[in-house]
C-alpha cells in the first residue's frame, strides 16, 4: 500500500499545493488533501488552537485534525523563507511545533525546514531529504521535483491569468492548462505587457459601461479560502466586477511598485500585498477602481501592512480603499452589505466622474 501523505489545505498550501502534490504523486505516494474549509473544520481549529493566534492558523489546526486519522504522514513543512533576505511569518516558523503541542494523537509529521533566506539553492537538500523517505532513487526524485516545479509554474501562470486559486487548481487537475500555458509563451498576453496591469479579467458586464475592476489584496489563504472570505471573489464577480489579486501580479511589477518605500518589507507575502496595491495606486487611472484589503483577525503582519496601505492610499488621494477584517464570527450579511456599499460608491463616483470628490467622505473610508 502506498504511503498516504496528508496535506492540509490551508496556509501556504494556497501558494504551493500543486508543487507538493505533484512531487509526492510522482514519487508514488498517495496524497490526501483536506477538503475546503467548512464550519466543522473551522470550529475544530478554534477549539484546538490558543485563543490569541490568527484565524488562518486556527483553521490550519482544524485541517490537521481532520487529516490526522486519515493519513500515515502529515506534511507540515516549516517554511522559514522562500526568497533571499525575506521571511514568512513567526507563526509559520513555529507551525509544526504548534501543531505537535496543540493536537494529540498525531501521525508522523514531516516538518522539514525550508529556509531560502541565504540562497535559493538551499531548497535542493530539503527536496532530496524528503524524497529519500519515499524513494531511494535519486533520479526519480530529481524527475519528480522537476515535474512538480513545472506544475507550480503552470499554476502560477494560471493564477496570473486571472483565475482564483480554486479555479487554477481545478484547471490544472483537468489538464486544461496546457494550451493556456503555451499560448502564454508564444504570444505575449496581457500578463507580459510591461506597464499594463499584470492581469486583466474580462467578464461580461451587465450594462454597456466598462466593468468595474477592484483589486482584492490579502494573503491567498484568506481571500481564496471560500469559507473564510465568504467567497468574496465570486461575490464581486456576480456583481459584474473584475477582481485582481496579488497572485495575478508579475513579481517584477511588485518589486518596482514598492521600490520607493523607505524599508522593504521582510515578509514575502506582505510584500506582495503591498506591491500589488502600490502598483495599482501608481497607475490608478487605468487599472483599477478600488482596493479592498482583507486582513485576518489576529494577524501580526497584516496589522502593520494594513496601516501602511491605508496611509499610502490616503497620501495619493483618489483611490477608494476598504479594509475588511475577517474573523470566525464574520457574518455573510454584514460583509456583503459592506462590499455592495463599496461597489455602489465606486459606481456613483464613476457616474459623477468627479475626481475632486474625496473618496474618504463616504462609505469608502478606512474602516
Amino acid at each position, binding site marked *: 500500500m502506498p504511503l498516504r501523505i496528508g496535506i492540509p489545505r490551508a496556509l501556504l498550501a494556497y501558494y504551493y499545493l500543486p508543487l507538493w502534490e505533484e512531487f509526492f504523486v510522482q514519487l508514488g505516494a498517495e496524497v490526501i488533501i483536506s477538503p475546503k474549509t467548512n464550519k466543522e473544520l473551522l470550529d475544530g481549529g478554534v477549539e484546538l488552537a490558543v485563543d490569541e493566534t490568527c484565524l488562518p492558523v486556527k483553521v490550519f489546526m482544524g485541517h490537521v485534525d481532520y487529516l490526522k486519522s486519515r493519513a500515515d504522514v502529515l506534511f507540515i513543512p516549516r517554511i522559514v523563507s522562500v526568497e533571499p533576505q525575506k521571511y*514568512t511569518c*513567526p507563526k509559520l*516558523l*513555529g507551525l509544526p*511545533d504548534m501543531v*505537535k503541542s*496543540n493536537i494529540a494523537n498525531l501521525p508522523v509529521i514531516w516538518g522539514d525546514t525550508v529556509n531560502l533566506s541565504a540562497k535559493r539553492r538551499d531548497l535542493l537538500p530539503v527536496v532530496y531529504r524528503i524524497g529519500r523517505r519515499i524513494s531511494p532513487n535519486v533520479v526519480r526524485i530529481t524527475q519528480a521535483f522537476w515535474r512538480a516545479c513545472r506544475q507550480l509554474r503552470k499554476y502560477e501562470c494560471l493564477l496570473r491569468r486571472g483565475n482564483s486559486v480554486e479555479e487554477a487548481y481545478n484547471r490544472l487537475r483537468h489538464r486544461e492548462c496546457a494550451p493556456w500555458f503555451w499560448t502564454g509563451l508564444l504570444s505575449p498576453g496581457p500578463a507580459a505587457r510591461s506597464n499594463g496591469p499584470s492581469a486583466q479579467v474580462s467578464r461580461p458586464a451587465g450594462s454597456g459601461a466598462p466593468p468595474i475592476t477592484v483589486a482584492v489584496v490579502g494573503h491567498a489563504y484568506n481571500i481564496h479560502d471560500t469559507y473564510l472570505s465568504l467567497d468574496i471573489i465570486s461575490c464581486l464577480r456576480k456583481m459584474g466586477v473584475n477582481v485582481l489579486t496579488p497572485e495575478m501580479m508579475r513579481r517584477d511589477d511588485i518589486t518596482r511598485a514598492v521600490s520607493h518605500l523607505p524599508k522593504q518589507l*521582510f515578509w514575502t507575502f506582505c510584500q506582495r500585498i503591498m506591491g500589488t496595491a502600490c502598483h495599482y495606486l501608481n497607475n490608478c487611472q487605468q487599472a483599477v477602481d478600488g482596493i479592498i484589503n482583507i486582513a485576518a483577525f489576529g494577524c*501580526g503582519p497584516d496589522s502593520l501592512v494594513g496601516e501602511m496601505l491605508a496611509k499610502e492610499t490616503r497620501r495619493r488621494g483618489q483611490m477608494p480603499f476598504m479594509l475588511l477584517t475577517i474573523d470566525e464570527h464574520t457574518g455573510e450579511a454584514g460583509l456583503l452589505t459592506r462590499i455592495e456599499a463599496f461597489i455602489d460608491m465606486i459606481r456613483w463616483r464613476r457616474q459623477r466622474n468627479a475626481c475632486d470628490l474625496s473618496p474618504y467622505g463616504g462609505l469608502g473610508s478606512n474602516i
Partner: protein
Amino acid sequence: MRVTFPRMGALDLTFNTLFKQLGAEVVPPPPATKATLALGVKHAPEFACLPLKLMLGNFIQAVELGADTIVMCGGCGPCRLGHYAQVQQQILEDLGYRARVVVLEASVCDLLPKIRHLAPHKSWREILRAINIAWVKMNASDGIESLMLKIRPRAVKPRAVTEIYEQGLQLLAAAHTVEEIRTAHRETFAAVKALPLRAEKPLLRIGIVGELFVALEPLVNQEIERRLGELQVEVKRTLYVSEWVRSHLLWSRQARKQRRAVKDAAQPYLGHWVGGHGLESIGRTIQLAQAGFDGVIQVLPFTCMPEIVAKSILPQISKDYGMPVMTLVLDEHAGEAGIMTRIEAFVDLLERRRKQEDVRYERIFGS
C-alpha cells in the same frame, strides 16, 4: 539636535548617558503613564503590538517637549519590531510632528556609523568612551535590579527595598564617570545588604519569561516583580537588556554558550527560532523546570507573534515537567485588579503544591 529614545524599564538611564556623553542634547521621554499609553493607542494601528503603541506615545510626548531626532531600534525580521520605526515615522508625519527617526539596526557594523552620525563633532575615542560609560551603567542598573529580586522576598519590609532601588537609580542617573557609577552601585548594594532580613525559610521560586519589553516596563506588566516579591516569592527574570547586548552585539563567548544551551533545551519542543524571544521563552522555561523552580510566568503583549507560538507550546512543557506555567497576556485594557488576582491565585496554587510535596516527602522518608 535634540535626541529622544524609546523608554523601557530602567533603560532610559543608559540611553540618557550615552547621548549626553556623545554631546547631544537629550530630551528624555517623560515616564510612561496611562496618558502616554492612551496617546499611543489612539494613533497606532489597532492590532499593532503594545510596545509599538507605548513607544509611539513616548515619542509624541518627547517631540512635544522639543525633541527633533528619535533614535529607534530596527530589525530584519521576522518580527514586527523591524518595521516599527517606519510605521511610527509615518504616523508622526501624519500628525504633523517634524521629527527624524534614526534607526539603529542590531549589528555593530550598522550601529557605529549611525552613532558617529549622531555625534559629528566627537572623535572615535570619545565615542567609544561614551559607549563604555553607557555600558557600565547598563550593567550596574541590571545588577541592582537582579539583587532587588533576591532581597525583596527576604526583607522584613519589602517596601524599603523598593525605596532603596529607586534611590539607587537616582544615584546612577547622577553618575557621569565609570568611577561614579561604580560608587553608586557599591553604595546601593551596601544599603540593601544592611536591611534587616527575615529568618531564612525556603521561598517559592518563580521564573519570568516572555517578551522583553513587557517584562521590563512596569507600566504594562503592573510591576509584577514587585508584587511577587511582596508576596514573598523569589523571582528570576530571564530577560535583561545587558544579556541581549552581550549575545547579539558583543558576541561574548559566554552569552553565546548560554544561548546555545537555551536552544538545545528548547529543541524537543521548538526546533527553530521564531523571532523575538519565542525560542528563549521555551528554552528558559525548560531550564527553570530542570533547576527545580516552582512555576513560570510568561508575559506577552496581545498579538505578539513569537510569544503566541511559545504560548501554544508551553502547556505541553508544563505537563511534561509537572511545573505550572501561567501566561499573562497584557494589553492596554489589562486591569491592575485582574492581574493581581491572577498572580495571587497562581502563588496560592504553587504554595499548595509545595505543601503536598512536603507531605509526600515526609511520608516516603519519614521523619
